[in-house]
């Protein structure tokens, strides 16, 4: 477990049940300032419920969450939005706002009732910086409904960056993306956190990415935090078995030597089964 001295988020013994199902059971974690933390686990393990609790979107039945030493339950939505930005899994295709409109909206917590683009000069700078960082200048006036999944996800991240918060929480930011788009998002997140000014919390199923780009990995199973370890010690068969209840194939990366997960072969070799062309 990490030290609490530098912690920006501190959750202690949080439990949450819904409709008779235990979604989180006595989960405790701390997130340190400037840290890159990955949360992994099987589908339905409680990862999204955990971050919904950290974001104040779900109220735990028991336990406590503190943000910068203050109870989350006593923090207003505006104060919370000035501290944590959230990137949901995927934006629905039906959203027809342009990229600029969508990114501008993330300045809500800073502008209050003032009209966007008129009084929020800092906001205009933040929006422009986020557009530049995510390389989406060409999408400014395009509707989200006409963008590809990768483009929409970059706009999604740009909006969170424009919120100018010290903490960024992302829920499976590369799910449903092709390898090229995944690589772009990985690079983008590595760039924005390289100065350690932003604390990054990411839910992902990409264990190879988690082990290579993050400082720490938390493994959740059935609502319990099974393991909280440094990334370089996470990729071990026994650890992965504990979290995923399945045997995963590990192999060293040819360049870095880090352990990588390879898919199990589930069919006979291509030489014997490939169709004739």
């Amino acid at each position, binding site marked *: 477990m990490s030290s609490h001295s530098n912690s920006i988020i501190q959750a202690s013994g949080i439990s949450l049940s819904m409709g008779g199902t235990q979604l989180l059971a006595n989960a405790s974690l701390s997130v340190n300032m400037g840290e890159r933390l990955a949360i992994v686990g099987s589908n339905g393990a409680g990862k999204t419920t955990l971050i*919904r609790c950290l*974001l*104040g*979107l779900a109220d735990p039945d028991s336990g406590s969450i503190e943000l910068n030493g203050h109870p989350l339950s006593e923090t207003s*939505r*505006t104060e*919370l*939005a*000035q501290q*944590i*930005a*959230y990137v*949901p899994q995927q*934006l*629905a295709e039906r*959203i*027809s*706002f*342009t990229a600029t*409109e*969508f990114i501008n*909206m*993330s300045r*809500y*917590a800073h502008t209050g*009732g003032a*009209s*966007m*683009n008129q009084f929020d000069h800092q906001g205009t700078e933040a929006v422009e910086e986020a557009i530049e960082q995510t390389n989406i200048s060409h999408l400014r*006036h395009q*509707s989200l*409904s*006409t963008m590809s999944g990768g483009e929409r996800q970059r706009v999604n991240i740009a909006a969170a960056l424009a*919120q100018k918060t010290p903490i960024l929480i992302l829920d499976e930011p590369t799910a449903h993306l092709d390898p090229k788009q995944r690589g772009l998002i990985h690079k983008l997140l590595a760039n924005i956190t390289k100065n350690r000014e932003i604390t990054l919390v990411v839910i992902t199923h990409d264990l190879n990415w988690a082990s290579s780009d993050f400082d720490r990995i938390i493994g959740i199973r059935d609502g319990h935090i099974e393991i909280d370890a440094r990334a370089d010690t996470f990729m071990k068969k026994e650890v992965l078995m504990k979290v995923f209840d399945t045997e995963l194939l590990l192999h060293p990366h040819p360049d870095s030597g880090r352990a990588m997960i390879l898919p199990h072969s589930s069919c006979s070799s291509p030489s014997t089964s490939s169709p004739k062309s």
Partner: protein
Amino acid sequence: MTDRAKSKVLVTMVGFTLLCILTTPWLGQQLTSWDVLFSPKADKVDAIIFWQIRVPRVVLALLAGAGLSLGGVVFQALFRNPLATPFTLGVASGASLGVTIAMVTGIHFTLVGLSATSLASLLGAILSIALVYGVARASGKTSPSTMLLGGVAISFFFSSLILLLQYLSDAGSSFRILHWLMGDLSRASMDSVLQLAPFVISGIVIVSIFHKELNLLSITDDIAASRGVDVHRTQKLLFFAVSLMVAGIITVCGPIGFVGIMAPHICRILIGANHRFLIPASILFGASFLTLCDTLARNITSTAEVPVGIVTAILGGPFFLWLLFSKKNSPV
């Protein structure tokens, strides 16, 4: 579409609405001379028709059209459903049930300037709002989809009660109920304008203040909350403010259909989904559209007026289909 282009569309809409205001009072079976403009108090038939019948009717159509269209914009954003309007949530059927009961029982009285029918309509609408919200809250399920389904169920329940009462009533009452259900502005007077204005104006003011929250709420509750919106408080406030505004409109004009559901979509096609532009656009479009429809409704035949609710659907349906299929990248 840039903000500059959207502003131009809005300016065009303002111009069109002004044109409607300036021209429609002059249109009717009875030609009126320009003199009436300078003698509003005169006893001449021309002046009475112009100032006491047509002008209040145009103002009433403007207010009702603006309110119904705005109600649709807000409910479609709050419930993230293109078919949501205050009508879908049972406000219209609640008001209609109140009026049906008043008409079948033949109650006649006036209370603080409101007739028994108006009062029954307002009470019916408030009852349906309270029922939808109360049931959702009591069950702990205030999600948009649950409230929408609850509203649809209550709407069907009230509609069936209306049909039952109509079936059991005499022919005269049944015809009056049917006529009221079609929506009608022929009862317009300065009194009805003064009754309706506070509902619509307060609704417009409240919704306009919350245009940024509506943008965020139209995406998802989680996005809105994570950006800093107090989701439950804002949803509750907008739900009651808009429901009451529409209840006021139905009380005075009857349930005029189509405007609330289609005008917001037409405006989204014309100006985009940003509520900073969509709210004024839908107010202007709804106001001018209902005014034009009502002008047509009172002039389409020389013998009798057609209820405006019929005209709104006959004119608006094909227009909406044309816009929907002719414009590329339509946000609808």
